[in-house]
């Protein structure tokens, strides 16, 4: 049985759990884990005040309970696998550098913010600022992959510098705001206006998108690299169709107020 932390009852105010990741707990004894510091609002507390600890340490960690008010789950993790059984709070997977974090429910805002590597999988939906930047920072996510099986909120991939964000459902407004590079794939609709102030990078949409007038149409074609990306996402369990993988995409370049080196690829009807 993997090391399992079970939340006894939902905290009344947000509980911050930075450091709860498999790589950091793998070598610790149970007493050390129970004594780890967590922040309940503005109060310092011990992990055992909120969680029951069971199982053995290793490369796998499981966290259970109503975790909607638990923040920073898996933040900074570098290796191993963390499974969150249910919903998770804000900043889940923030600053991740490796390993795999699977949330079996929804995640709050700022999930995967400033991520550098690894894979964050959200089986439900994600809030705003998915894969975005810490407040005040220019660059957001710098590497790794975020897969969301449900919807995602506004400003997905703000300041994205490198990495892949894929959302099976609908993506909210202002996706790819000020993005520097990297790739955002929205399978179920994309709010307006995507790619505002983007310098480089790719936003992929599978249906009509309202674009800023600072984007210019280039051509309609089948981007060779996109086949790799979409096949990769299908292998990871996202619902990609052959029409999407083999289809033609309209290429719009922008943002013209910046370098115009970015692109928004929009699937065209029919192959």
């Amino acid at each position: 049985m993997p090391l399992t932390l079970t939340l006894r009852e939902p905290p009344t105010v947000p509980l911050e759990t930075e450091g709860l990741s498999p790589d950091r707990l793998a070598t610790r004894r149970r007493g050390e884990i129970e004594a780890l510091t967590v922040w309940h609002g503005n109060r310092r507390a011990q992990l055992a005040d909120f969680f029951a600890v069971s199982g053995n340490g290793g490369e796998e960690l499981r966290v259970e309970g109503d975790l909607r008010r638990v923040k920073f789950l898996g933040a900074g993790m570098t290796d191993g696998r963390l499974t969150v059984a249910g919903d998770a709070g804000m900043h889940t997977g923030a600053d991740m550098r490796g390993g795999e974090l699977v949330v079996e429910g929804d995640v709050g805002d700022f999930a995967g913010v400033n991520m550098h590597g690894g894979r964050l999988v959200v089986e439900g939906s994600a809030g705003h600022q998915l894969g975005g930047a810490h407040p005040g920072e220019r660059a957001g996510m710098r590497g790794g992959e975020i897969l969301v099986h449900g919807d995602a909120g506004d400003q997905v991939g703000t300041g994205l510098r490198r990495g892949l964000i894929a959302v099976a459902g609908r993506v909210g407004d202002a996706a790819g705001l000020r993005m520097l590079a990297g790739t955002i794939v929205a399978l179920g609709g994309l709010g307006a206006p995507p790619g505002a102030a983007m310098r480089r990078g790719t936003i992929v949409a599978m249906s009509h998108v309202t674009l800023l007038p600072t984007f210019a149409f280039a051509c309609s074609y089948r981007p060779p690299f996109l086949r790799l990306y979409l096949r990769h996402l299908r292998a990871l369990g996202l619902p990609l169709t052959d029409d999407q993988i083999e289809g033609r995409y309209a290429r719009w370049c922008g943002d013209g107020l910046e370098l115009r080196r970015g692109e928004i690829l929009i699937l065209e009807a029919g192959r």
Partner: protein
Amino acid sequence: MRLSDAEVVDTFAEAFPMWGARIIITAESPAWAHEAARSLTGFATSVIGCKCEAGIERELDPAETPDGRAGVSALLFASDREGLAKRLVERIGQSVLTCPTTACFNGLDGPETVDVGGQLRFFGDGYQASKLLDGRRYWRVPVMEGEFLVEERFAIAEGVAGGNIIILSRDVAGALRAAEAAAAAMRTVREVILPFPGGIVRSGSKVGSRYSGLVASTNESLCPTLRAQVPHTDVPPDVGSVLEIVIDGLTLEAVRDAMARGLEAAARAGASHVTAGNYGGNLGPHRIDLRDLVPALRDD
């Protein structure tokens, strides 16, 4: 030693290390993937005159390629790492980048890699873009037809060159029939290529020449027309034609396997004799005895 009706000479092939890479080419149709692969592997029969040896390894199903399109796998060998890196850039740049609808990927795993796409990207003249997926970087080079996608780094590995069998027959038709059967059998082996035209070479060579500056010249001891002129001949009296098949491979095991299949096929197809070329054991570290290749020969 007898195998079918062929006399198998109790000798060995002498193989030596070469550095190899596997290139995966995909395209909108198998025909265009083949066009690129043929061009890529053209004029690459021998390091002596071509600086590399290359050939098509096999066709790939869409399920086997990175982008899900039909493809071809080719192997390219050169004497050293630096030479291999140069040949990859030259040949992919001239033969794959230029070919309509193709994309080009590394087909080997291994710790040692050389920069290919990272060099070819400069053709994009500043409009190129890169993508990093699953730890691999790809370059998107804009071209008139659309976009050329090429992987940045190609793995290279130390392989084996110089595997060979030599097929003797009463006349050209018989030698060709046996050699074609042998080449067809060898092509069923993965990780090997037969770099000569159709897999078969009629001009086996020896090291050096009486003329200064020539590093290789005709192997007169296996030329039937010279049997009465040379001080030593390896051509039996009833033999009128000799053909050779050279095999390069990523592993010694694959080269041995190809030689074994070729030897059996040539014997079945009517070769009167089968032998192998070597340099007296002085050139390469790998010795492949014909006796050890086929179980029926071991007890002979």
